Structures are given as structure tokens and as C-alpha cells.
């Protein structure tokens, strides 16, 4: 739960804005009482103020705002004239609201009389015309106001359960029930009025201490409140539905029998007479927030993404320009060598040469300046993208805060005692993801309560505390948000799950032989399986776990389950921070570039083709003792693979992907590197294309598709055999004895570089950082080092410097692979002694291999 104070700080700007608007609108109204727009505006703002007051549990202010809303409504209906007296009331109220904003204190002594005065005003009018009201016209206003009452009562009841003796809360729920009763009766909704009246009685009894605030009593009130909510829905929809209120009434009566009915509707003891307060106009504070529609924000994020793409394209072109300058430099030196002044045939030749030199110098300087500006622009666009995405990030509290009520109802429904704990609600996540998190969470909670958690008796018998615990935790890890939902219930038995899945025909016995417990547990997500009644009972997991997975995967996330029998079950949902961009591994497949979200990538493997075995009707490969099925990505997508070059050499490049517990090694043609990509949809015609989660536009301007990894695993296994043509075996003659040390703190990058280098025939050893690399270099002999720049413990610069300082290895060629093109890094890298500087984002494996080949050849020549 977020602290009250935090809520105040978060909402206070909106509140201040509302007050300012309200003030302006009232001023306009005073000048022109017929200004209906201002009237409407004022009403809206008052409504906001009321919402804020209720949220902040300041019932007096809420009541005041509510009454004023009614005054405005009456003005609108020409029932009350907007004269000086009324205007004074309104401005007095604004002063009180502003006072609250400044101090967070409710000036009770001024509020109470004002409330009375406003009530009197309204009452007098109502009496005059009570008979002749056009109820139909008031209906929308009534429903809106009544819904606010219902919501406030809900909130209040929930708070009461936590803190049964909170007088403020008691007063607030009482007041809401009271005004609900009043307005319902005024509107002629007799049953609703009676129900609200009974609620009011019960709240009154709470206040006076005649009835204790117990969960059961609250339950009765929740029920009555829900009944009113249903009535409101049907009323608003223009329908009449017979909602049976008698049961709810009777339940509340059970608590009231002991008490004498007290029909007095006085709110609280009289306050002392008001003291005059220095009023300040509320318009002096600066506006520091702006409300923007989310579609505008999306546009902004998209545009920022476009700017980043344009920037990458620009950087590429500048790289070409830099190469041209390099070539020019070399030509220049040769030209100077060959054109000796003496050898020049004429003065004209010399002048021409000079002019050319000048032009060249000019070009080079311009190129350098351009590079600098482009780098600066690059940093700007990058942070523009970053900032614009941050705007859409919202705290998980917005969803988490709604859960306790749901959990409470569920635990009562299933007769379970539960302590529901929430941690990490302040973690932020993309609004688009947040919006869709509620359903899967409720689903999992319901399942846990229904099936996972034992009844109090069973728990007692098995030596557990009667009150079960469900803990929901959220945290950010890198570019992921991890949600963990853990219960201490009976857990899931993987063996039983397997048996049911087989007996129900969801899987074949042969398919699951040798599966680990974790893999078996994953069966819970098979569509249809978890809905079967039998499984529900034994698995401890009911309806639609597959729906949960589908929901999470639609958000580009993953959900996994683990369980200890009789100790509990844990669901882990990992989600991307944002849907606007995704971190992806770029691969080449059938000549197309595909982006694979790294959340789904386990590792990159490069293996000789003869290590691919045929087992139980499918190709498999052994990875650290584990049998992993091998799939041909191009064929899976229905394309013709173009693995010619790789396969002729007898080596294959795999990306090991996973969806839940299922994994497979997918054959690809080429790895192109990792990058942050801006996601776009395929256009409305192609909303739901199999295997495709979206698209992105590459620096080159072409569209690359983003793979929907879970879909790859849904593909029927039967056609896997079509995925293969022939596999030539490895031609070992190209194996080189040269050893390359790859240094990078990211496992994925290490693997990728390792794969590329091994594919080119080098042997590879890896290190996680500079210090690790130096250790490895002490023990092993190696021919070349490929290093990242920024790493923990020791960065690439220091590593390079250290190598250059060590006698034994000082001639080792060093290639820096930097995350971004930065002149400063490049200069520094070359200064400390690196031989080449490549950029990861524009990383082309051919460029890397060529650079390494060149360096190693030079080395051999020098060595000879």
C-alpha cells in the first residue's frame, strides 16, 4: 500500500489545478450567470475536489464539495439563483479547500457551519419544489453521485476492517450512506433508499459502539453496498431489475437486533463558532503539471523512436564518410611522395595538387565536426526517447491497490483465512502493460485461494498456521519487471499432473518421459488442461492458467511456475519494462532480418553439424548434458533456408529459445547483434499473424519482424521432420589453432561473439571482465583479445593498458567492441593501445572477422 502522504503528494497538483479552474470558473460565472460552460466546468472541478477529499479521507471536505456540486446542479436547473449569498458560500469553500492543500489540515471550525449553511440553502429549495421535480432529468446526476457514495463506502469498509475503530472512517461511511439514502428516496428509489437507510443504521451503531465492527458485519455491508451498485448499474442503463434487497436487509438486521434504532441524522457534535480566517486567493501557485492524452504520449514515443532510427542511419553514413577520409589520407601521403616539387611538370600541376589537398583537409575537418555534432545529437535523441518513455511509466500500486478487496472477498467466499502481503508496489511499468495486469493477477489469486490454500482445519492438521499467506512481490531487474506470487498452500504434484494430462489425452506418455519436475509442472499451462475438473481438484490450480500465460505472453512476458509439495506454489511473471521498445537479438533467417526479444533467448550455440543427433523422431542436440530439440527457424516460418555457407562448412548457428519450460535450439543463418528496437504493429490488416509479435524499422529503413517466440512452440511437432534437408558434416580442415579471448560482462554478448568466432574457425576462451581476462591470460596462451569497454572490476581501457604494460603479452592484438560509436572512447581506446575499434550496435560479423583476420595476419608476419 502506498502511504497516505505519498498519495497526497501525488494528487495534490491535480487538486490544485482543479481548484484554480474552479476559482476561475466561479469568477466568470459571477460576471455572467448564464455562462453554462463555466458552470459545467465548475461542477467538474468540484467533482475532482470531492474525489480528492474522499481519497484523502477528509470526509468533511468531501461532504462540502458534494453539497456544492448539488448547489451548482441546482443553479444549472435554475432552481437556485446565483446571487451574492451563494457566490460567497462557494468562495468560502474554495478558501477552505486551499487551506487544506497548504496544510493538510481540515479547519473543522469553519467547515461545519459552512456545510450547514449550504445544506440549508439546498433544503429550502428542495422543499419548495419537491413535488414537481422532473426526476428523469436528475437521473444521471443521481447515479454519478450515488456511485461516488458506493465507492466511498467500499473504501471505508475496507479501511474499517484494518482499523475498526477509526472514527474518521466511521463518520465518512455513515455520511455516505446517509446521503445515498437521501438521494435515493428523493428519486423515488424506495428499495435502494431502504437498503441505504439500514446501512446508515448499522454504521451509526458502529459509531455509538452498540455493534462491534466485525468482518461478518462488514461483509453484510459490502453485500448491501454491492446490491446498491447493481441497482445503480441497471438504473443507469435505463432498465428496471428486481434486485432482492430483503436478504441483505435481513443480514444487516441480524447485527442490529440488539440495538435500538437511532434515526437521528446529525453528523457530529456542534463545532465552536467559526473564527474568521485570512483568505488568500488560490491562484498564486504556479501550474507544474499538464494533463496529456495517452494517445499523444504514444505519438511522442513513436516519434522519439523514429528520431533514434534516423540517428542510427546518420551515424552509418558518417561512418562511410570517415572511411572516405581515411582513404583520402592514405592517397594524400602517396601523392605527396610521388609528386616531388622537382618532378612536377608545371606550376599548374602544383597548384592543382595544393587545391586538392586543401579540399581534402576541408573535407576531413568537416567530417570530424559532423561526427561530433552527430554524437551530441545522438545522445540527445537517446535521452529524448528515454524520457518520453518514462512519462508512460506508472507505479504498479495502481493495480496492486485494487487487489486486497478482491482477495478479501475471495477468501471469505472460499472460507480461507488469509494474510495477503504486497511488496514493491512502487515499481513502475509501462502503462500499456499495467492496464492488462489486473486480470492475470486476479486469476492466479483466485486459483491460489480456491485450490492452492487448504481450509483452516486441514492446515492445522498438517502443522501449518491456520492463516495462510499469499505474498505478491514486484521488483525491477535490469529491463524486466519481475512479479512473484507465492502461497504457502498445498502445492502442485507434478506426477499427478502428468497422469491426468496423459489420461485426458493432452500428451502422450512417450512425450514426457524423462521430463524434470519443473517441465511437468509447466503442463499446467497447456490450453484446456487446467480447465478440466479433475485436474482442478488434484492440481490445486483451477480455471484457465493457460489464459494467464496467454495474457502475459501478449505483453511480451513469460510466466513460470514452481512448487514444493505441501509447502506452496510460486508463479513468477517476468515482463518487459515497456512495450514501446524491446531489447532484441537480431538474426538473419531465409534472407530476412528477424528480431528475437532477448527475454526469450536462453543462449547462443554454435556447433558442428555432426553433433546434431536424431532421437525419437526429431533432431536434438546435447547442451551441457541436456537434450534440446533442434528446429529449423526458416522452415518453421514456412520459408526456404539459406544456410548454404554455414552448413557447407559443417557448422550451424543456433539460438536457444524458451517459452515457459519448453526450449528448443533454432537454426539461424547469421547473428547480427543485439539492439534496442522500437516496436510497431504490422498495420491493422495484419494484426494477428502467426509467429509475428510486431515489427520494427531498422537503421537501413527496411522493416524487420519481431518474432512471437511462444507461437513457435505452439507449432505442431509433427511437421518438424520436414524442416530438414541434408546436413553436411563439418570440414575440420578449416579449424584454426588460433585462440581468441573474448571479454564482456554480458553473457549473451560473450556467447554471440564466441559463436561468430568459432564459426570462423577460431578457438575461443571467455572472460567476464578485465581482471578475469588478465587471470586467463596468465594461465593460457592466446593470439588475440576482443574486449568490451565498460565492465565491472576492470574496464576495457584498463585491460588494454595492462596488457600493453606486460612484457610477455604486450604485442597481443586487441579489438575493442564498444556499445556505441563515440569518438572520445575510440580515441582513448586507440591511445591506450587497442588495434581496432568496432561498434556493437552496427555490428557486422563479417567486419569483425575481417578485422581479426587482418590483425592476426599482421601478427604472423611480424612474428616471422
Amino acid at each position: 500500500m502506498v502511504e497516505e502522504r505519498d498519495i497526497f503528494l501525488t494528487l495534490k497538483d491535480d487538486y490544485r489545478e482543479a481548484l484554480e479552474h474552479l476559482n476561475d470558473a466561479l469568477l466568470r460565472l459571477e460576471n455572467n450567470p448564464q455562462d453554462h460552460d463555466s458552470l459545467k466546468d465548475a461542477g467538474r472541478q468540484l467533482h475532482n475536489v470531492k474525489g480528492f477529499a474522499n481519497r484523502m479521507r477528509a470526509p468533511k471536505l468531501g461532504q462540502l464539495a458534494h453539497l456544492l456540486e448539488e448547489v451548482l446542479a441546482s443553479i444549472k436547473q435554475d432552481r437556485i439563483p446565483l446571487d451574492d449569498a451563494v457566490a460567497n458560500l462557494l468562495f468560502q469553500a474554495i478558501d477552505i479547500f486551499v487551506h487544506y492543500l497548504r496544510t493538510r489540515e481540515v479547519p473543522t471550525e469553519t467547515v461545519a457551519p459552512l456545510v450547514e449553511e449550504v445544506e440549508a440553502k439546498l433544503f429550502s429549495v428542495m422543499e419548495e419544489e419537491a413535488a414537481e421535480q422532473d426526476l428523469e432529468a436528475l437521473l444521471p446526476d443521481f447515479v454519478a453521485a450515488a456511485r461516488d457514495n458506493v465507492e466511498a463506502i467500499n473504501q471505508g469498509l475496507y479501511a474499517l476492517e484494518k482499523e475498526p475503530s477509526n472514527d474518521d472512517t466511521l463518520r465518512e461511511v455513515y455520511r455516505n450512506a446517509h446521503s445515498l439514502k437521501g438521494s435515493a428516496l428523493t428519486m423515488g428509489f424506495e428499495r435502494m433508499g431502504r437498503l441505504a437507510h439500514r446501512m446508515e443504521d448499522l454504521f451509526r451503531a458502529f459509531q455509538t459502539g452498540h455493534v462491534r465492527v466485525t468482518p461478518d458485519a462488514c461483509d453484510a455491508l459490502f453485500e448491501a453496498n454491492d446490491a446498491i451498485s447493481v441497482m445503480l448499474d441497471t438504473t443507469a442503463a435505463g432498465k428496471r431489475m428486481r434486485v432482492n434487497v430483503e436478504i441483505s436487509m435481513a443480514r444487516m438486521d441480524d447485527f442490529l437486533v440488539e440495538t435500538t434504532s437511532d434515526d437521528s441524522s446529525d453528523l457530529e457534535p456542534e463545532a465552536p463558532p467559526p473564527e474568521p480566517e485570512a483568505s488568500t486567493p488560490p491562484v498564486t501557485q504556479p501550474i507544474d503539471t499538464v494533463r496529456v492524452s495517452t494517445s499523444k504520449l504514444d505519438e511522442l514515443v513513436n516519434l522519439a523512436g523514429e528520431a533514434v532510427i534516423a540517428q542510427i542511419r546518420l551515424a552509418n553514413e558518417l561512418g562511410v564518410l570517415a572511411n572516405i577520409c581515411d582513404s583520402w589520407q592514405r592517397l594524400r601521403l602517396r601523392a605527396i611522395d610521388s609528386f616531388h616539387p622537382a618532378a612536377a611538370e608545371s606550376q599548374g600541376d602544383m597548384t592543382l595538387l595544393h587545391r586538392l589537398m586543401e579540399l581534402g583537409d576541408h573535407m576531413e575537418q568537416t567530417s570530424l565536426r559532423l561526427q561530433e555534432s552527430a554524437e551530441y545529437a545522438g545522445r540527445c535523441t537517446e535521452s529524448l526517447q528515454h524520457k518520453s518513455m518514462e512519462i508512460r511509466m506508472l507505479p504498479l500500486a495502481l493495480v496492486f491497490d485494487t487487489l486486497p478487496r478482491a482477495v478479501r472477498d475471495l477468501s471469505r467466499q472460499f472460507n480461507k483465512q488469509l494474510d495477503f502481503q504486497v511488496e514493491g508496489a512502487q515499481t513502475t511499468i509501462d502503462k500499456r502493460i499495467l492496464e492488462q495486469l489486473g486480470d492475470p493477477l486476479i486469476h492466479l489469486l483466485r486459483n491460489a485461494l480456491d485450490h492452492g490454500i487448504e481450509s483452516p482445519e486441514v492446515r492445522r492438521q498438517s502443522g501449518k498456521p491456520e492463516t495462510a499467506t499469499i505474498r505478491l512481490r514486484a521488483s525491477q531487474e535490469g529491463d524486466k519487471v519481475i512479479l512473484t506470487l507465492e502461497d504457502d498452500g498445498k502445492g502442485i504434484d507434478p506426477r499427478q499432473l502428468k497422469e491426468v494430462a496423459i489420461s485426458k489425452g493432452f500428451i502422450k506418455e512417450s512425450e514426457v518421459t524423462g521430463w524434470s519436475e519443473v517441465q511437468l509442472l509447466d503442463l499446467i499451462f497447456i490450453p484446456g488442461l487446467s480447465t478440466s475438473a479433475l485436474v482442478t481438484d488434484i492440481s490445486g490450480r483451477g480455471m484457465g492458467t493457460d489464459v494467464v500465460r496467454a495474457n502475459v505472453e501478449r505483453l511480451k512476458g513469460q510466466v513460470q511456475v514452481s512448487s514444493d509439495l505441501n509447502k506452496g506454489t510460486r508463479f513468477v511473471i517476468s515482463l518487459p519494462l515497456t512495450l514501446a521498445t524491446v531489447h532484441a537479438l537480431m538474426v538473419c533467417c531465409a534472407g530476412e532480418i528477424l528480431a528475437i526479444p532477448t527475454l526469450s533467448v536462453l543462449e547462443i550455440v554454435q556447433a558442428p553439424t555432426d553433433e546434431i543427433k536424431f532421437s525419437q523422431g526429431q533432431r536434438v542436440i546435447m547442451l551441457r548434458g541436456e537434450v534440446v530439440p533442434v528446429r529449423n527457424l526458416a522452415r518453421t516460418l514456412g520459408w526456404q533456408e539459406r544456410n548454404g555457407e554455414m552448413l557447407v562448412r559443417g557448422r550451424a548457428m543456433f539460438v536457444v529459445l524458451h517459452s515457459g519450460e519448453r526450449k528448443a535450439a533454432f537454426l539461424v543463418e547469421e547473428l547480427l547483434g543485439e539492439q534496442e528496437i522500437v516496436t510497431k504493429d504490422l498495420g491493422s490488416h495484419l494484426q494477428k499473424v502467426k509467429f509475428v509479435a510486431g515489427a520494427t524499422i531498422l537503421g537501413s529503413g527496411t522493416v524487420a519482424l519481431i518474432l512471437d517466440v511462444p507461437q513457435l512452440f505452439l507449432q505442431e511437432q509433427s511437421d518438424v521432420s520436414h524442416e530438414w534437408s541434408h546436413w553436411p558434416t563439418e570440414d575440420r580442415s578449416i579449424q584454426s589453432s588460433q585462440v581468441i579471448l573474448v571479454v564482456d560482462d554480458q553473457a549473451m554478448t560473450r556467447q554471440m561473439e564466441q559463436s561468430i568466432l568459432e564459426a570462423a574457425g577460431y578457438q575461443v576462451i571467455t572472460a567476464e571482465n578485465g581482471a578475469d581476462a588478465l587471470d586467463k591470460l596468465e594461465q593460457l596462451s592466446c593470439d588475440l583479445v576482443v574486449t568490451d569497454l565498460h565492465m565491472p572490476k576492470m574496464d576495457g581501457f584498463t585491460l588494454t593498458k595492462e596488457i600493453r604494460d606486460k612484457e610477455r603479452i604486450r604485442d597481443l592484438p586487441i579489438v575493442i567492441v564498444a556499445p556505441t560509436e563515440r569518438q572520445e572512447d575510440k580515441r582513448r581506446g586507440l591511445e591506450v593501445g587497442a588495434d581496432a575499434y568496432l561498434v556493437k550496435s552496427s555490428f557486422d560479423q563479417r567486419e569483425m572477422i575481417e578485422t581479426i583476420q587482418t590483425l592476426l595476419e599482421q601478427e604472423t608476419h611480424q612474428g616471422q
Partner: protein
Amino acid sequence: MPDSPTGPGKKNLEQVGRVRTNHIGPVSLDSPQHQYLSFRLSKEWYALSVDKLVEILPLPRITRVPSVPDHVLGVMNLRGEVVSAIDLKRFFGLPRAAPHSDPTIVVVEQGEVRTGLLVDTIGDLMGVNPEELNEEPPLVGGARRSFFQGACRWGEVLVSIINLETLLQSEALFSLETE
């Protein structure tokens, strides 16, 4: 304006744009003519209303999309927007071979959605009175009658006028199942 679309004369976008603006601007009452852009698919001539026309592009790089019907060529980048590209010839089941093909993408807009249509050659802009659409389109290949508003004579040839609305809303256009 030449009175026959048989010539390979490809009209540039400026001309289309101008006609379009002229068209959108106040049209004089005594000229109920409507403007159509004609193009050739294989050997047949077709046309579509310039109202729906966004732009004409030389064939760009198109990214293939898996598990879509053959006539969906894939997606392309239209100034930062991902737009799908349709091979009308394949959709109508016309022969692949086309004499003097100058493959061009015609980008059209239906609702808010843009789509690229691959055609063999762009022809003339035709001004046609709605009453003149009195011929029946020949329905070569697998084309359905509902995909056309009608057809008309334009000089020597018969030009079928495509009804973009029904064409682009056709289930068969983007989904495998209903084909």
C-alpha cells in the same frame, strides 16, 4: 490528357496530386466527372478512384511475413509506418507474366489504414462520368464481381474500376482460412 491508357506513360505523383487537389476543391456542377488512376495487371487494365490514392512508389524493399496468403507480399516502410503490400495480380489469379512490367506500388487509404498495391504499370488518369461505368468487368482469374464498381471503355481498352472498400475489407485478402 491522352485518351487511351494503353501507352506506358507513367504519370508522376505531382500530376496525381494536382488532379486530386483539383478534384477535392470545388468541382463545377456541369462536370460530374470522377478521376480514376488506371494501371495494368498482367494484360488487363484496372483503375481506382484518386480519392483513395495516397502515393505512387517505385517498388521498395518488402519484408516477407510468414503464414500469410501468397498474395500478401509482406510489409514495407512508408515513412516510419509499417504498411502491408498486396500483389493484386496474384489475388485476382492473373498470370504472373506481364509484358513491359514496371513494378510500382500504389498506396491507397481506406479508413485510416494504408495499403500498398503492386501493379505492373501505371497508366493514365481518367476522367469518367459515373454513368459511363456501364460495362461489366470481365472477371478474369478469380476476381469477384463485388470487388468492382463496374467497367468502362477508355479508348481501345476495357478498364475495370476497383471497389477499394469491398476489396480491402474482404476477408480473403489477409487471412488464410477463408480463402
